[in-house]
């Protein structure tokens, strides 16, 4: 056999070596490690979302789906007063829930991180205890607390602060907010705690050394440096609560109905999947935009302080 031109042989060898180098690179190892999760996520998250987006541009023709492209669903979703109101209410409730949750969770996280001493892990463990029971049960127990003959009303009556039960505790948006804040508190405390733990304590000492009292060193050092945790807490709480279905259903009454109920109705009784899909997509887009705005606003707020 005639000897192959040297260049081709080296080229071959080089490309084999190149391939081998890539398969043993960190990047390849990393991709291999995440591939089960990645494939799982792609199959169960990305594809359904694509299907939902596709549906939102189609229309329902009694029992069949008309696959011609239309924006009619989005027109309904954005202009029909009922959907606009529901969406607006969902957004305000989720915003209120995330603000209240973060405001209540921050001091808890701060206390555990700065004054938890040797019991830090015990405190964190105690915070996760409510999550051991089913979400449904926790929401139900708020019905017991907030109800007309509930724990709160009977308790207040026995102390003589009120003489007949307050009817406005349950079945409205306040009840939804109270319940959601409680359900999501642990998920807000943990990221804030982690970011507080990461703060080098000598930075706070340096702030004191340079003339700050406790309040100022908190505002100028601790708070800005824990901002990543605050932002994650915000997003972790805000994004899922917009679409929460169970809590408004159980404690919201007719004043506490949120967009998820309407979406469910379109996919169920309403039998209008394309409209349900358009409502879902609209909600997703608006939530993403709102999340982005919140992140920006928090960053601006902190920049103002320093």
């Amino acid at each position, binding site marked *: 056999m005639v000897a192959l031109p040297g260049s081709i042989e080296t080229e071959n060898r080089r490309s084999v070596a190149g391939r081998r180098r890539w398969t043993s690179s960190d990047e390849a190892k990393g991709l291999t490690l995440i591939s089960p999760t990645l494939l799982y996520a792609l199959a169960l998250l990305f594809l359904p979302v694509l299907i939902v987006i596709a549906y939102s541009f189609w229309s329902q023709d009694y029992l069949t789906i008309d696959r011609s492209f239309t924006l009619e669903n989005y027109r309904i979703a954005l202009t029909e007063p009922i959907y606009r109101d529901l969406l607006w209410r969902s957004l305000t409730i989720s915003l209120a829930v995330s603000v209240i949750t973060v405001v209540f969770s921050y001091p808890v996280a701060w206390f555990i991180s700065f004054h938890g001493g040797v019991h830090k892990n015990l405190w964190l463990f105690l915070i996760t205890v409510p999550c051991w029971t089913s979400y449904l049960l926790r929401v139900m127990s708020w019905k017991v607390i907030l109800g007309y003959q509930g724990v709160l009303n009977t308790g207040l009556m026995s102390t003589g602060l009120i003489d007949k039960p307050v009817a406005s505790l349950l079945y409205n948006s306040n009840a939804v907010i109270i319940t959601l804040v409680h359900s999501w508190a642990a998920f807000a405390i943990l990221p804030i705690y982690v970011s507080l733990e990461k703060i080098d304590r000598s*930075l706070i000492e*340096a702030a004191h*050394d340079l003339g700050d009292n406790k309040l100022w060193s908190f505002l100028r*050092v601790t708070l800005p440096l824990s901002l990543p945790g605050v932002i994650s807490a915000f997003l972790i709480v805000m994004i899922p609560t917009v679409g929460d279905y169970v809590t408004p259903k159980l404690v919201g009454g007719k004043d506490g109905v949120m967009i998820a109920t309407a979406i469910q109705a379109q996919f169920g009784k309403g039998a209008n999947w394309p409209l349900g899909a358009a409502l879902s997509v609209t909600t997703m887009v608006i939530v993403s935009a709102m999340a982005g705005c919140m992140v920006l606003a928090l960053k601006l707020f902190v920049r103002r302080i*320093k």
Partner: protein
Amino acid sequence: MADTPMIEIDAVSRYYGIYRALDDVSLDIAAGEFFSLLGPSGCGKTTLLRSIAGFDTPTSGDIRIDGQSAIGLPPNKRPTNMVFQNYAIFPHLNVEENVGYGLKRLKLDADDERRRIGNALEQVRLAHLGKRKAHELSGGQRQRVALARALVMRPKVLLLDEPLSALDKKLREEMQVELRTLQKAVGITFVLVTHDQYEALAMSDRIAVMFGGRIAQVATPKEIYQHPLTRQVADFLGGMNFMQAKITSESAVNLSVETTRFGNVTIAKPKGFTASNGQATIGIRPERLRVLWDDAKADCEVTGHVVDRHYFGEITHLIVEVPGLEKPLSVSETNNFGADDIPVGAPIRLAYDPDALVAMAS
């Protein structure tokens, strides 16, 4: 030394449970002095520094800064500023904002503030890096930012907690000179904590050597190196050849001792000296022993033979066994005359000056 000390440490003790971090420490530091607290880790030097800064409160005793008792004053109310061991540069602020951090509380007008930040950065030669973020700085630059941030506050006392320990050797030596120059220029009292004896010797006006929460000796670098009061101090500050000697007579200030190989000598009696069994610990630094070449003569000589040799570039350490001494002598000789070529096993004569012998309390 000025009449009123800048810092007066008055019988300060600090207990953590039953552990004594500071044990009845008293110390005066003069205004404008470069003072070092030197000792091994866990000796209480950092606790003492943090007590001056206000981050730690003594269990008993008083700390006065510029005549005012500082006990109960939080760090932000004290006329001291600190350079932290890890520099504690605020990661979310740039260099200028870091340096200006403390000025914000003083409510200066904007021009004045900018001028002071500029001057401070000038002082540490970082004026060109004002907009850099903390994570874009090298170790040496972070250290300068920490210095500028403290100096811009114009404190009466600057406290430095092992400020050079995180730097590599070359940069550390540069910064030693620079810190010393800076201190002379600003005239502020510097209190430095370090475990590096060379750093303390090179930079300080005076050094306090600490062991186990107590102060073993306070003196100038030269005094502390040449006349260590205790064996521990001598050992911590460089090498020392220790030997036992018999006391023949003892006065209030002097000791006459009889040694096995260094003859009969009279040496200064250290403070707090007590004889044990009529014996005293005496010592001589390795560099005070000099190799005698060929037929050179000296008034005082010891003879022995080389048992080991360690090469250090500019110097060589010779380990010389001398008959009658319980331990071989360590000799530090420059390599100018070929000390690095002396073979192991060779006989050797060493010259010494009897004045170089010191007595130490055990």
